[in-house]
């Protein structure tokens, strides 16, 4: 410690009390600052995760609030349920129907917002508007759009002399309806993230590409998309984590909240709720929670691999940043 002192303060120094206090302050303070977060986090974040693992290997008794160790039985039980596989299929179907169109739309809208438009703030706020509406409220609003008999869509279809769409009877159409609710709420949010990434692209590339005779489409696929890669990976991973947990919208899609009479839109989290707080079987609910977590991890990894190969990495181009470009940007403002 004395060596460190002499390095910091050359010359003769006696380690006074206040000096000692200050060293102690320097050492201990970081831990003091992170402790409120970590203490709370350990109690309400880490402990439950670990304990879920413990409970998932138990037959949990609700009355005594304790369990008996039974190994992998709960996992085996879950994997043997046809409802689980239906829920898995529905979750994936809703996830794909929401993520894929949502990302394409978001890239497209972001490209529009990235142009030199008037009223930037207005349009940006406009796309974000649905973000402040609660998912439950979005679900209830879209229920009158997708109601089987007099909903907005089916009403207009009947006016045109067409048959209404079986929004609740048919799994596929119920997934479309629920995915639409998800898309409504999240497209604008992802648009803004992608827009920020687009604005970070060095504008000189576009100038060079224009000089080389590349059209807008070519510029988009060869410059914009590759530059978006890290952001796209981020957006895809966050929507995977969120999308596979979907609960709110399917829960309010009808007044019973059980995922439909024939499990048309039963999702994994709805099923988890039903096992935990409908059948009151906590061991099985805990096992299902872990299965969901493992699925999310797997899909996250697969996504990462796919995105890495699909979107080419052209990062080496982006290292040089001439100073005059910065000036130009400042002038443009």
């Amino acid at each position, binding site marked *: 410690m004395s060596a460190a002192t002499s390095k910091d303060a050359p010359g003769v120094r006696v380690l006074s009390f206040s000096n000692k206090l*200050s060293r102690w302050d320097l050492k201990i303070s970081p831990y003091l600052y*992170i402790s409120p977060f970590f203490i*709370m986090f350990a109690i309400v974040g880490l402990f439950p*995760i670990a304990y879920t693992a413990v409970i998932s290997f138990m037959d949990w008794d609700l009355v005594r609030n304790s369990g008996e160790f039974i190994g992998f039985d709960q996992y085996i039980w879950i994997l043997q349920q046809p409802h689980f596989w239906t829920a898995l299929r529905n979750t994936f179907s809703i996830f794909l129907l929401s993520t894929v169109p949502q990302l394409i739309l978001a890239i497209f809208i972001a490209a529009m917002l990235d142009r030199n438009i008037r009223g930037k703030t207005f349009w940006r706020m406009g796309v974000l508007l649905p973000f402040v509406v609660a998912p439950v409220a979005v679900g209830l609003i*879209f*229920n009158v759009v997708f109601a089987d008999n007099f909903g907005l869509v089916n009403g207009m279809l009947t006016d045109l002399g067409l048959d209404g769409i079986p929004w609740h009877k048919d799994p596929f159409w119920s997934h479309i309806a629920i995915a639409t609710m998800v898309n409504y709420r999240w497209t604008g949010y992802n648009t803004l993230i992608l827009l920020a990434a687009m604005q970070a692209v060095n504008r000189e590339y576009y100038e060079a590409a224009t000089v080389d005779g590349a059209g807008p489409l070519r510029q988009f696929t060869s410059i914009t998309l590759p530059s978006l890669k890290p952001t796209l990976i981020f957006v895809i991973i966050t929507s995977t984590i969120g999308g596979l*947990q979907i609960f709110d919208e399917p829960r309010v899609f009808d007044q019973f909240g059980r995922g439909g009479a024939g499990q048309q839109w039963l999702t994994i989290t709805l099923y988890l709720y039903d096992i*935990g707080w409908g059948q009151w079987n906590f061991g099985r609910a805990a096992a299902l929670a*872990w299965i969901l977590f493992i699925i999310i991890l797997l899909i996250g990894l697969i996504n990462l691999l796919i995105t890495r190969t699909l979107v080419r990495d052209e990062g080496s181009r982006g290292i040089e940043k001439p100073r005059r470009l910065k000036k130009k940007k400042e002038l443009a403002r």
Partner: protein
Amino acid sequence: MSTTTLTPESSESAETTPARPLRRRTTHIRGNRPGFWTYTTLAVVFISAAFPLYWSFVIGSGDANSLRERPWWPSGNFIDNALAVMSNEAVNFWPALWNSIYSSFLIAMAVVTTSTLAGWAFAKLRFHGGPALLAFVVATMAVPQQLGVVPLYILFSELGWTGQIGAIIVPALTSAFGVFWMTQYLRQAVPDELIEAARVDGASMIRTFWTVGVVAARPAAAMLFLFTFVGAWNNFFWPFIVLDRQNPTLPVALSLLQSNYFVDYSIVLAGVVLATIPLLLLFIFAGKQLVSGIMAGAVKG
């Protein structure tokens, strides 16, 4: 000391960069004024964002028949429907509104406080195990909420807290995202020299944090507050599990509105409008900050 050794190198590289021949181009290639189609597309996007809200007001201001009649303009029943929501005994609208306001506020305050403190330590103070702890916090952001609900429910029923609003506040008091967000922001917002200067002047660690860190953190803290508030206000899964219909939050109350056998959608949607108005007000005043918050977070994320 380290800066002096670096100076010659950096000045060298600064010289080499502009040595390339400068091409002068004044045409704004991407700066072309966008045309009719861009604005039309944006208008379509805007209408799709706003129409569902408008439509819920149209239905919410009608009566039980308006779903079938599909009027395009609002009718005059909104106040009646809103009163029906407020007086509905199954829904408990006023307690729900109050619960939503104060739980979201407390959660956002706590998250901002714990995240600013921890973010300051991770971003600007060097300590043993710091980087590893931060990586661990970031990794936990991938953990779904579902993984914690069973033990939390057991814990709160042991404490006798089920049905209490505290059961939704306490688990939300910290946020891994918040710590990550504040760390990222403070790392680039505060130059290390400033902290060193404060230390040289004899400021204690807490004083440095208060006079340098907190002041610099304010913009990011305001955004974190907004996002946490909106997130807490809209949260449904855990409140739905642990709260009951006597003491709900707004989303839980909304879900109760339609869980009847005969659903009058004009009343349900009047409830939706009522529950959305507070956040719409927030959006009008702070929407700009939300936009810039998302865009700022994206560049770093």
